């Protein structure tokens, strides 16, 4: 079976964000990550398109995405001082939504930088 190739893919494992990786992949997984370092290779090859985990968990039990989103919104809305934290392993587009979330909630907003 032939693999699809992506040239100049971006690796987001560490802060170097190398943008010259060549990925060889099929629908399920990435088989080869040329030019990537040991850390980047592990990052690309260990993530697959398999459905390994449930869509969502509420109190440790499997739940639908819609229920989990509604529950998250309720818990955050009920709180007096909610905290929005992390944002390292996610895209800038999601980070912008997180800022909007903290703004809308009147809560706290912080990233790994403060650790």
């Amino acid at each position: 079976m032939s693999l699809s190739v992506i040239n100049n893919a971006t690796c987001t494992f560490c802060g170097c964000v190398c943008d010259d990786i060549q990925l060889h992949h099929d629908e399920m997984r990435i088989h080869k990550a040329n030019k990537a370092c040991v850390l980047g290779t592990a990052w690309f090859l260990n993530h697959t398109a398999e459905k390994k985990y449930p869509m969502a968990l509420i109190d440790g039990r499997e739940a639908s995405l819609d229920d989990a989103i509604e529950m998250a919104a309720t818990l955050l809305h009920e709180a007096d001082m909610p905290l929005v934290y992390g944002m390292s392993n996610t895209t800038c587009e999601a980070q912008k939504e997180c800022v909007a979330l903290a703004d809308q909630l009147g809560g706290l907003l912080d990233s790994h930088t403060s650790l």
Partner: protein
Amino acid sequence: MYWGGNPAECHPRHFTKYTIMQKSKFLPRGRKDRTMVLVDIRETKSANAADIFLQIKPGKDFELITILRAMIKDEYVADEQINATGLTRETLDDLIRRMKAAKFGCMFFGMGLSMTRGKHMNSAALLMLAAEMNAFTKFVAMPMRGHGNVTGADVIMRWQTGYPFGISFNRGYPRYNPGEFSTVDVLVRGDCDAAFIIGADPGGTMPQPAIDHLKRIPTIVLDPHITHTSALARVHITTAPQGIAAPGTAYRMDELPMPLKPALKSPYPSDEEVVRRINEAIARKPFWLPDGSQPQMLTRQV
């Protein structure tokens, strides 16, 4: 100059792609035209790549930077003050001579500087040293960022709020005060009564009192994996991993934005989609401040 970091093992391509190996117009011989200095408390694999390795005593970073700041200006520093850092006057004289002779110096500092005794005071001192070196030659300083898009978080927060991290919106407008609004402090004091965690695993990295507070309050986690934090959370939502199955933008540590080229189609939604839907769900609920007490834009001069 690398200070308190181990790029050979933590950022394996930093040397070859960005700092010491590349040939350029002004440095045609690449590595041979550059000097690399490593300052650390132990001899890591990065020391093999360095021209000069300065092994200092643990917890003496701030002292050494302060001594360097004095010595570049030919101010008096006593031998015993230098010896307390684990180095000698000859070593420092040689280092300062090389720093001043350089055409362009760059300091990269890692968590060995910014997360040990002195913390942000150490980083501030190194930034001062880099600034003061500009009286002699061009010098800059940059932190070695760990996780993928942590630089993007700084940039996005700066763009949207004016501050890079440690922000509170509890008066309806952003305020910045690390130590008061930074997460470890907030959690250890038990200030927040809900937590939304995305692209991070504080359950595996934070001090125990902070984790204990996350267990006490409703915690919501967005992550491609079931993490330590997911195990103590009320809600976990699985999302597509960025750059592998989710598209978007990530910032390199020198604040250059890079487009992501995802190779796979994930069965899970992206972080962006889930957070946007949570935002929409909250927007349907009543606003947290009563009507009339919401912050207003000043539109007319009084």
